[in-house]
């Protein structure tokens, strides 16, 4: 008890302004219902959000109401429609699970509240050094307008009962697909997973991948994507349904792997395969793996729209998501299985032990199998890539 008071006193002395501000925030947040707009296609995430709501209402009197989206852009469209109608306060969206192009689009148009991340007490567990993973979103500086909550990393998945040795590079994948026509596909490129597959291939096949970190130009695009299109032209006829139609998203693709319609799929969550086996959604022989040379990884964030009705509540939620105990629970494969965004060096021994004690599974790739994490290209590359893909392959 005395120790806690002492700790609080030290904390208060260290940053007196922040502590009082945060208490104000907590007081204002009490009783608020935060409408969190989050993609709703994943039951595990939905249950995790429901759990967070229960924990928050017990501790701070804040409840979360998840607004389940089919596509994150729905929430962006909603905020724009509200701005069009002159709704500058008491908007319907309090918080959005967001990153990449949606974040860029909202930030550019001044649709976000902030900067607020530095005001969150649990931000001290983050590595916020300039240029670190938590401070850039697809190379766009975050500048405190969104707060990290989960880590995503591209992995390929397969059923080891049907494929003994999966291809570990994009060139090997082409060869495999030519030997097994119709047994592989990627999600529609209008979906972020399909676009990520193209970006992953682009990073591997581009003559000089470093240009991807700057905004795209016509010359850079032509030079970087030449080998990609050559590779894709050879791959496409060997895709499922000859590459004329694609699964809507990665979840549907996972279902196709389960149904046996394809042998290799992909995911942006290394633990999703283990979790899907646990839930009966994939056969026990399914496995996830990384590629030689590493795969793309990024952090998912939560942002607060400029006209949110419950900004304080949303900040309390964002702070709760950064709590080491919350992050450890999220990393548990029996719960969510999404890797922590916290800087392990900034955690105390007790918190680190919590992470070390988490359960494991044969379908869960080791860090070694996952390989290094590659940074996302600038968002303008993704937009151009999907546009050009659509022009080339949509009749």
């Amino acid at each position: 008890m005395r120790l806690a008071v002492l700790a609080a006193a030290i904390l208060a002395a260290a940053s007196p302004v922040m502590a009082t501000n945060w208490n104000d925030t907590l007081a204002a947040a009490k009783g608020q219902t935060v409408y969190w707009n989050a993609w709703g296609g994943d039951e595990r995430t939905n249950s995790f959000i429901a759990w967070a709501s229960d924990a928050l209402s017990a501790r701070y009197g804040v409840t979360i109401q998840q607004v389940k989206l089919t596509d994150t852009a729905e929430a962006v469209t909603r905020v724009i429609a509200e701005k069009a109608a002159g709704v500058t306060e008491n908007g319907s969206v309090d918080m959005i699970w967001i990153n990449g192009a949606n974040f860029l689009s909202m930030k550019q148009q001044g649709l976000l509240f902030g900067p607020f991340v530095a005001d969150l007490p649990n931000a001290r567990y983050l590595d916020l050094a300039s240029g670190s993973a938590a401070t850039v979103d697809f190379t766009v500086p975050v500048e405190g307008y969104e707060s990290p909550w989960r880590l995503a990393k591209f992995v390929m998945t397969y059923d080891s009962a049907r494929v003994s040795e999966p291809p570990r590079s994009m060139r090997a994948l082409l060869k495999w697909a030519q030997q097994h026509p119709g047994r592989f596909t990627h999600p529609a490129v209008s979906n972020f997973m399909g676009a990520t597959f193209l970006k992953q291939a682009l990073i591997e096949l581009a003559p000089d991948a470093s240009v991807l970190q700057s905004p795209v130009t016509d010359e850079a695009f032509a030079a970087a994507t030449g080998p990609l299109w050559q590779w894709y032209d050879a791959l496409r006829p060997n895709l499922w349904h000859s590459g004329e139609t694609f699964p809507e998203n990665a979840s549907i693709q996972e279902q196709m792997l389960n149904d046996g319609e394809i042998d290799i799929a992909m995911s942006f969550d290394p633990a999703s395969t283990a979790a899907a086996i646990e839930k009966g959604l994939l056969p026990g022989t399914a496995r996830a793996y990384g590629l030689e040379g590493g795969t793309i990884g990024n952090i998912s964030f939560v942002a607060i729209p400029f006209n949110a009705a419950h900004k304080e509540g949303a900040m309390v939620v964002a702070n709760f998501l950064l709590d080491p105990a919350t992050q450890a629970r999220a990393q548990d494969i029996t719960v969510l299985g999404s890797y922590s965004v916290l800087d392990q060096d900034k955690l105390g021994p007790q918190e680190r032990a919590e992470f070390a004690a988490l359960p494991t599974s044969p379908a869960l790739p080791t860090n070694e199998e996952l390989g290094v994490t590659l940074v996302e290209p600038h968002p303008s590359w993704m937009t151009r890539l999907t546009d050009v893909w659509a022009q080339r392959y949509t009749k």
Partner: protein
Amino acid sequence: MTGAEGRWLRFFVLLLVTGGLVLPILTGLWETGRAAFGILPAIGAETWSLAPWQRLFTLPGIGSSLKLSLWTGLASTLLALLLATGFCAAIHGWSGQRHVSRILGPLLAAPHAALAIGIAFLIAPSGWIARMISPWATGWNLPPNIATVNDQMGLALVLGLLVKEVPFLLLVMLGALGQIPVNAQLAAGRALGYGRGVVWIKVILPQVYPLIRLPVFVVLSFALSVVDMAIILGPSNPPVLSVAVTRWYFAADTSLILPASAAALAQAFVVAFGILLWICAEQVAARAGRWWIRRGGRGYSAGPGLILASGATLILMGLGASALIDLAIWSVTWRWSFPSALPEGWSSGIWARPGSGWGSAFIQTTVIGLTTTAIAVLLAIAWLEGEDRAGMQRARWAEVLIYLPLLVPQIAFLYGLNVVFLRAGLTGGLGAVIWAQALFVFPYVMIALSDPWRALDRRLVCASAALGAGPMRRLVAVKLPILLRPLLTAAAIGFAVSVAQYLPTLFMGAGRVATLTTEAVTLSSGSDRRVTGVYAVLQAVLPLGTYVAALFLPAFVHRNRRGLSGGAA
């Protein structure tokens, strides 16, 4: 006296319908139109221009999307009409005919999204049909690489639409046949040496068609602009126009809202063009038909056609029923992998946890459905009673007014309507959703109620008036009790329409109003068929429950009224 009161009632109802139903659609269209021509201040677009249209026509796949929409819409409507006519001709006069509309109940009640999800699993290469015949008959240990769902031609979408539209047209047609002395004409025709099928085509159909023409246009408009079913069954690259418009509205690149609005208007033109094409085809068919009828041929050749149409209709109904059954099986499955004909493991885990989401969606859907239906039924009664009291026939323009929400594609005005509602501070709540749904529920209630209302035996009303009952008492004590069965049927149809609404709930509810339908469509983009199955089953069972209630409640209430309990109304 009654005349004056009737006029007042009519005026009041007309005001309500114009202000509550027509005005929102027009303002919605206006806002969409502004965005289509470059005005959307929220994203900094403030000058009139044709740029959104230019951009629209450079978007990849726009040409194919247009063609796909027209092809799937026209083909499914034409086929649905042919099949429904053939089936009607084949079963008319058969003693079981009265039961047909009851058998149609489940298919009419099941929302498009639920049926689409069920059909997708049924006909997919790894679907239930393939599982039942594999590997013993096909040799498939793995699903074959053929596109039976999401095919480029949109055939799966046409099939899905047929499963839904044939029962609807059948119901409308059976209702219309009640207004024609079919048996007498059939007998006369046969006496003159015409075959049964030929009498149907040459004598009955030309009389029935004008009565069902507006419902046919509704089917056509719906098929040309359907979104939820097209997402689940249609091709994806490129999709039909309506799906493309929805995608562009919700794309990360917000500047796409302008060409999306242009495309939403284009969707309205597609529907107008489709209806125009249809009317031209009607003219041609009428000319050709007249020539053919005057020729006086007695051919018996229509027989095989009838058998074919009836067979196809029965197969469609079988598909629809199997689709509902496969959803029910999935909802209690643990694991079910190819090529097992039935699940290897069962689990009722999701049913046991209403707290996981379906409980609140179920309640939300019920509340919205009941309120919307109550509003629509009251409004319909007021309208019809107004016509009665004024002693007037329904004007042509009034008919079109009622049908307007069903003829204008939803996507064309919903975004604009959303902006209007937001400005009025109305969005995000149940109220906005209920209002928006009432736009679409009211017309269906009117369609279902109008004919039985007009068919009411006027002598009963006259007798009660002669006995001194005022207009209100005549309505409450005589007309409504007699019309209880059709009233409840209309309410059940209205409720089913409300449960099925996807876009209005999505746009007007700001995503906060989660109904079974919005959840089912969202979940169908996930990987868990078992959860989707639970939502889809609930989505189908809820309206079915009201159908059953509509069937048995009158029988119970009228158990000691012999003249009313035999389905006299």
